[in-house]
């Protein structure tokens, strides 16, 4: 099935720009979400969305330039995303224990 998908794809007029547009849209949605949401966990979820967009762009570039390092780079993106998730979630739990809320606005003043 995969080869048929690939063959179908190579016969149509899909260009690099299509994939880049989808990637840019996902990235911007993640950015808007990061700026507007106040729940800390959802904010980190939005950063994962931005990682996802970057991965799509990487793989699209690699496919259209015959370079396997696009996919290799996505492996590193996955690594960084996993490390970031572990650390960020540990921090969120820590902050939650300090103030009993997930509201990011409660941390807007660093003094106190």
């Amino acid at each position: 099935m995969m080869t048929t998908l690939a063959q179908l794809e190579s016969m149509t007029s899909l260009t690099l720009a299509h994939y880049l547009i989808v990637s840019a849209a996902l990235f911007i949605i993640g950015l808007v979400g990061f700026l507007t949401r106040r729940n800390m966990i959802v904010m980190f979820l939005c950063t994962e969305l931005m990682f996802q967009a970057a991965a799509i762009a990487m793989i699209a570039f690699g496919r259209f330039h015959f370079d396997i390092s696009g996919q290799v780079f996505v492996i590193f993106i996955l690594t960084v995303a996993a490390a970031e998730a572990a650390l960020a979630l540990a921090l969120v739990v820590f902050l939650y224990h300090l103030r009993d809320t997930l509201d990011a606005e409660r941390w807007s003043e660093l003094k106190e």
Partner: protein
Amino acid sequence: MAPTILYIACVLGGLGLYLLVRGGGPERRGTGPIKALGALLGLAALAWLVVGASDALAGEEGGRPEAFFVIFSLIAVAAAVRLITHTKPVYSALYFVLVVLASAGLFLLLEAEFMAFALVIVYAGAILITYLFVLMLAQQSPDPRKPDEQAEYDMNPREPASGAIVGFILLALLSRMIFEGSGELEAPPVEEARVAAWRELARMPQRVEEYIAADVDGEFELVWDGERPRLEISADGSSAAAYYRVAEGDAPRRFPLPAAAMPENVQRVGLGLILRFPVSLELAGVILLMAMFGAVVLARRAMELGEDAKREAAQMRRLGHHDEPGEPAGGAGAS
């Protein structure tokens, strides 16, 4: 595509997203129509962008993007919008799983099969489970008597208007740049991709030898071109052949390789990872280890404080201190 169309699409998308994000708290009645309007505007902008892009990029042939691409990208973008607009964080996490699945579909279209499945396993399987665990730990209803009530900070977003404006100005600039820049890059023909895959085989001489040894009895040796075995690849990439000789000084014999000898995606990714980025691979391992240590240290400190407080509340002072009743228990452990 005319830039005005692009800008109009971005404005529509931004407006739709703003209306969706603004949502409504319990005090804001009648937000249903507003949300529906926002969704409609967003969908219109997206459809406009996709159709306009395909018209502009396909040129005179008037081809349409392939159905799979449109389906996967629409699912991805729609789920992403739901992710940032849903007021319940658990549903946001589940919508993120949908985004991951849709982009795994896009990866399959891009012939990155290994990364598609790794993405589903690592993201949807591991990272999202961690998120859900933390959500269950930390997410609480503000009033314990009403478990369905949602927290105020989930209902009311922070500055939705400026967020949407900034985001979609950026999107307009990005998509304009994409259309003017690398947009004309066509999908490479499948023959070229096959030839590129066969070329990778030249870096795996042992694999070539195994295929020849399966058919040739006795000793033989490969014919080399410099450091790589000599390969003959047909122009359309449908077949390739290696050369070997049985005895020193013989004429090289041609050996047509079976189609299964073409390196698959996993093998090419692994080869690229080991041959071209060995140091980065080690660094990735170090990063994961450090993240694990960091998470353990952060989580443990919170647990220890909680345990101390609990012990003091329960007056378990005798634990490990027999002779000095005046000293608080656990005081030595906390630092």
